[in-house]
């Protein structure tokens, strides 16, 4: 028979050894995992401007097309810039900003909140790409919006989600849904109106997009995400237009 003392010691040693092994593995594999996450983020940004990429060439294409990255604050001021791979202002990397954390700061009215904006040059055309993040039905949803030079018309979007219902809410990640956004506008005579994802949307209306049938809460989540995240960039957009 085993004594209680033995059982306690056995369990303790087992757990400590396991924890040590897991810590080692986690620390050792972290660089590879971080690289995968970086590459995925680049692929999503490239996707928003309609450039297909594979995990292998994403980094190269990103450097080629995304010539400028800026971090802007809620007042519309640039706090950091990287132009052609060189830090020209500030010290932080706009690409490295955690959208979720920064949005939380913004919601708490913290003046230090800043979000990235990427400038893409493709075939001589300039486009501005901004990340958005919000909540769907089951978890977070996020995406990137690419605007044309007028900072009003959308040229491309992509959305992704953590775990929306397949066939319903998860449809926001399909091209059919995303292509609807092309050509939509977020300003109505200089007033920020965002884009609404709704049932029986009027195709001719530049501020409406058809919702996913059976995915009402996810669709509303997309509307809400666009409105709240784009709000952040409005001062910056206005400062560029002047």
């Amino acid at each position, binding site marked *: 028979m085993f004594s209680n003392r033995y059982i306690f010691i056995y*369990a303790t040693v087992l757990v400590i050894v396991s924890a040590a092994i897991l810590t080692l593995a986690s620390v050792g594999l972290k660089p590879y995992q971080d690289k*995968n996450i970086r590459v995925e983020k680049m692929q999503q940004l490239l996707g928003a401007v309609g450039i297909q990429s594979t*995990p292998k060439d994403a980094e190269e294409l990103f450097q080629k097309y995304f010539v400028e990255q800026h971090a802007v604050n809620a007042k519309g001021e640039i706090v950091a810039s990287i132009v052609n791979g060189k830090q020209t202002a500030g010290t932080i990397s706009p690409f490295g900003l955690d959208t979720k954390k920064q949005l939380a700061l913004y919601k708490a009215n913290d003046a230090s909140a800043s979000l990235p904006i990427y400038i893409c040059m493709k075939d001589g055309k300039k486009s501005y790409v901004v990340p958005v993040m919000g909540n769907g039905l089951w978890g977070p949803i996020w995406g990137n919006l690419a605007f044309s030079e007028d900072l009003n018309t959308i040229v491309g979007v992509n959305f992704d989600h953590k775990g929306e219902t397949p066939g319903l809410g998860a449809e926001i990640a399909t091209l059919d849904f995303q292509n609807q956004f092309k050509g939509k506008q977020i300003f109505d005579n200089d007033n920020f109106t965002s884009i609404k994802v709704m049932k029986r949307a009027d195709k001719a209306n530049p501020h409406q997009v058809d919702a996913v049938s059976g995915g009402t809460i996810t669709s509303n989540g997309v509307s809400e995400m666009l409105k709240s995240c784009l709000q952040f960039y409005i001062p910056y957009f206005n400062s560029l237009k002047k």
Partner: protein
Amino acid sequence: MAGFNFKLIKNPLSKENPITVQVLGICSALAVTAKLQPAVVMAISVTVVVAFSNLIISYLRNTIPPRIRIIVQLVIVSLLVILVDQVLKAFVYDVSKQLSVFVGLIITNCIVMGRLEAFAMSNKPFDSFLDGIGNGLGYAVILITLGVVRELFGSGSLWGYQIIPDSFYEMGYQNNSLMIMPPMALILVGIIIWVHRARNKDLCEK
């Protein structure tokens, strides 16, 4: 150490197959087999976890206090599953995203706990290791079969490469979208069990 007991690998492939005969591990078999690639990665992951947890538990079996044996088994299984998950995240990121929670759920896969309790707790390490490999492969055979059938007829491709030529689609052929839904996997498992039992009468219950 006893010699190489080939039966330990061969039996789970057919007569003691974990999915079709013991009916274990069905949940993940339905969830990850819509495409071949995740099915293969899942099969390898489960095989690795079963084989090594069997090996480790079998080495420890005489030191494990019976009162906490399930907890000890769970700790070992979780340890291996988390390691597998971390490795997948580092080296096959896209597949690991498709498998999502199902890698973590290997911990609760009945095949793993079943083999630990039924075999590793009372057999020698090397035999237990072979038993783990055998059961993992038995699971793999079914997963890969499902993956091939479902991806071929559901998406017209295998391992992501298009197999069914465009000319078929032009002639009106369509992918069967039921194939990529979980219910079809259950129906396919049913068909496999049916065929398997029809050919092995001794498996049929009286």
